[in-house]
């Protein structure tokens, strides 16, 4: 199985690579979109702002290549944190900017409900399944995962919501549409349930 981790010069790639290795695969970290054609799984990680993320994806030739790989070649892709957000049609971190548009929806900043809610949302919080799905197979409902973000994905269609998390109301912490998945938390930093998400993604 050939796992490709998209390197668009923004992220902590070491952690996700090491975590996948712990799951028994040998991922390739690449800056070359040409490698997508031969990948059997794509991981789009991300730390950074939406605007910079998209700028780098365009500049390095990833944006169109990812859209083709997912839509035409049907390769399963998982976006993590900013990588999930970039799947949206648009985001408003650092100005309104178009995203990859792989799952209908937009990315917005948290609006705190009360004065004790601190933004960014940093730390361990529960993930509740919205429906039975293969990505969360074997993971107890309400398991804690590690989050660190100020923005969240608002999908246009409810059926794309895989899981939600209680913060500033409930926000969508995992999405899926066909072969495209996104998780707002960091599976590579979330202990046992995190490793299970990665293994499930490899099995899909």
């Amino acid at each position: 199985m050939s796992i490709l981790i998209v390197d668009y010069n923004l992220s902590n790639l070491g952690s996700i690579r090491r975590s996948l290795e712990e799951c028994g695969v040998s991922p390739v970290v690449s800056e070359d979109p040409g490698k997508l054609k031969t990948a059997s799984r794509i991981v789009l990680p991300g730390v950074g702002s939406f605007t910079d993320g998209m700028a780098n994806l365009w500049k390095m030739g990833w944006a169109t290549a990812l859209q083709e790989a997912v839509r035409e070649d049907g390769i399963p892709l998982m976006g993590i944190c900013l990588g999930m957000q970039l799947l949206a049609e648009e985001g408003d971190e650092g100005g309104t900017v178009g995203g990859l548009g792989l799952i209908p929806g937009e990315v917005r900043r948290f609006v705190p409900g009360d004065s004790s809610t601190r933004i960014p949302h940093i730390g361990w919080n529960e993930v509740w399944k919205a429906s039975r799905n293969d990505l969360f197979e074997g993971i107890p409902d309400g398991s804690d995962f590690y989050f660190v973000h100020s923005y969240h994905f608002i999908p246009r269609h409810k059926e794309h919501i895989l899981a939600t998390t209680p913060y500033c109301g409930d926000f969508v912490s995992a999405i899926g549409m066909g072969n495209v998945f996104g998780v707002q938390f960091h599976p590579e930093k979330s202990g046992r349930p995190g490793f299970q998400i990665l293994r499930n993604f490899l099995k899909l």
Partner: protein
Amino acid sequence: MLKLRVIPTLLWKDIGLVKGVGFDSWRRVGTLMPAIKVYNTRQVDELIVLDISATSENRVPDYESMKEFSAECFVPLTVGGGVCSLETIRGLLRAGADKVAINSAAYGNPGLIREAAEKFGSQCIVASIDARRNPNGGHDCFSLCGSKATGKEAGAWAREVESLGAGEILITSIERDGTMQGYDLDLLKRVTDSVRIPVIASGGAGNYQHMAEAISLTGCSAVAAASIFHFTHQTPMEAKEYLSARGIPVRNVNVREGSR
């Protein structure tokens, strides 16, 4: 519900793991790698690793060592020490840090926090603030490992770094550091009241009750500690059991060992 975090802090100096008192009298307490492995196996909520001699020795962070540490670390990792430019931040993120702590450099160049937040996102930029109580009951900020007065008051500086885009504040009481006498609750309260970003309490934890007090009395989002874990038999997991028994939400108090 978002959980309160218990975070071991590892101070790193000349390749060794150290702990001091009042930012001085450093004692070597081991090497970093085994400590990271133990905390990884025990699934701590998060780890803070600070290279406390980088800035005073005027050198950039040791990326290669950090890469080795992070390869063994599957828990969230905040790294600081010697962070003075966008390049050092990029280097640490690429070496495996999830968050980067900026301290001394921010006083001379506050724009660094703004640029870093714009480039890498606020969520990975931690403003680390070291403060000492002054005779008027206020708290003054110090840079260069507590050695240089900055003229900044802790609450005001916390607000300033928040407005520049820092995503979190690590606030350390210099005189409580290493004493195990309890956190400086006034300092914590001053900072948590001043900002709307998460605040990590640091400096002085000597027992679990100190942690519970800091959380319930100041509204901090996490408690960091070092001496208590180096020099006593107390552990992050027991700390969380204690906090949980007092109604404070923490993560997986029932899991003891094994990460995967």
